[in-house]
C-alpha cells in the first residue's frame, strides 16, 4: 500500500525552483507617467507610489502582479492632484490601490505581451500590456506603454465625461527596475 503511494508523493514536489525568479518592483527606481488631452492639448502627470512582483525565467516573464497608489498622483498642480483623488476620478479613499495581474504572458519578437486584468475603482477589465524586460547596468528593468480608455474605469465621471474637454484616451508609460 505504502509503496503504491510513493509515486504520488512526487506530485507534491515543487517544479525545480530555479525555473521562476520572482522579484519586487523597485518603486524608487522607475516611473509611471500618463498623458491625457485637456482642451485639446497634452497634459502630463505621474504616479509616485507603485510596486509589485514580476516573475521570470531567464528573460521570459511568467507572472506579473503590480499595483499603484493613485493618491500619489503628481501633475505639478496641487489643486489638480487634489481633484484627481476625489470620487469623480480615482476615489482614493474608497479605492486606495489599482492593480494589474497577468493571467498569461506570451513572447513576441523582442517584446512580451501580458494578458491580464486591470482593476481600477472596483472595475476590472481585460487588458493586454506590451512590455520589455531587459538588463541594464546589472539590473532587470521592465518598461512599456499602453493606452487606456479612462471612461471604462470610471475615471472622470459626471461633467468630466465630456471627452471634448478631457480626452478619453490616457497614454501610460512605465519603467521600473526590479530588486
Amino acid at each position, binding site marked *: 500500500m505504502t509503496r503504491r503511494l510513493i509515486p504520488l508523493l512526487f506530485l507534491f514536489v515543487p517544479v525545480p525552483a530555479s525555473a521562476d525568479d520572482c522579484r519586487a518592483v523597485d518603486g524608487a527606481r522607475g516611473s509611471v507617467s500618463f498623458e491625457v488631452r*485637456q*482642451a*485639446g*492639448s*497634452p*497634459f*502630463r502627470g505621474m504616479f509616485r507610489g507603485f510596486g509589485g512582483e514580476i516573475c521570470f525565467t531567464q528573460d521570459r516573464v511568467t507572472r506579473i502582479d503590480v499595483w499603484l497608489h493613485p493618491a500619489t498622483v503628481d*501633475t*505639478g*498642480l496641487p*489643486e*489638480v492632484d*487634489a*481633484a484627481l483623488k476625489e470620487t469623480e476620478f480615482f476615489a482614493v479613499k474608497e479605492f486606495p490601490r489599482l492593480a494589474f495581474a497577468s493571467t498569461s504572458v506570451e513572447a513576441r519578437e523582442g517584446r512580451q505581451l501580458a494578458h491580464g486584468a486591470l482593476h481600477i475603482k472596483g472595475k476590472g477589465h481585460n487588458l493586454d500590456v506590451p512590455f520589455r524586460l531587459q538588463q541594464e547596468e546589472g539590473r532587470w528593468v521592465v518598461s512599456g506603454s499602453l493606452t487606456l480608455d479612462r471612461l471604462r474605469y470610471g475615471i472622470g465621471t459626471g*461633467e*468630466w465625461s*465630456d471627452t*471634448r*474637454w*478631457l480626452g478619453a484616451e490616457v497614454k501610460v508609460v512605465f519603467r521600473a527596475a526590479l530588486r
Partner: protein
Amino acid sequence: MRFRNSAEGYGIIAQAFHWIVAALVFVQIGMGLYAADLPVSLARLQWLSRHKSLGLGILALVLLRFAWRSLNPPPALPDSMPRWERRAAVATHRLFYVLLILAPLAGWFHASAAGLSVNWFGLMQVPDLVSKDRELAELFKLTHRVLVGLLALLLVGHIGAALHHAFLRRDGVMHRMLPWRPRRNV
C-alpha cells in the same frame, strides 16, 4: 471715411483695431477674473481655455495694430492741451502697447510652465514657451496678475481722460477715435 490716420483723427483701420481690442480686453479680463475663482471643474477648464485662446488672439491683434501704427503715425494732440497732458497721453498709449503685449505673454509663459498648453480654440496646437516647472509657473502667474492690474489702472485713467475730453472739455480729442463727427466742437 479714411483708412489712414489724418491730422483730424484716426482712420478706420486704427479705429477698428482700437475698439475691437478694447472690447476683447474687457471680455478677457472678465473671463480671467471669473475663471480664477472657480474650483477645479469643467467650467474652469473651459473658461480658462477660452481665456488663453482669446489672450493669444489679442496678442496677435495688438502686434498687427502696432505694425499699422508704426506705418501710420497717430494724429498729433491739439496745442490747447498743456504739455504735461500731451506727454502723459503719449506715455499712456505707449504703456498700453507694452502691457497689451507683456500681459498675454506672461499668461502664455504661465500656461506653458504649468503644463497646461494651449490649443487655440481647438483649432491649432500652440507651442510652449518654457518647459513645465511649478515654481516658474507661480512666478509667471504673479507676473501676469501684476501686469493685468497695471493694465486695469491704465484703463481707468485712459477712459477717464477720454470722457473728460468728450464731456467736459469738448475739445474733439475723444472724437478722433470715433467714426462720427462731434455734435459740438469748441
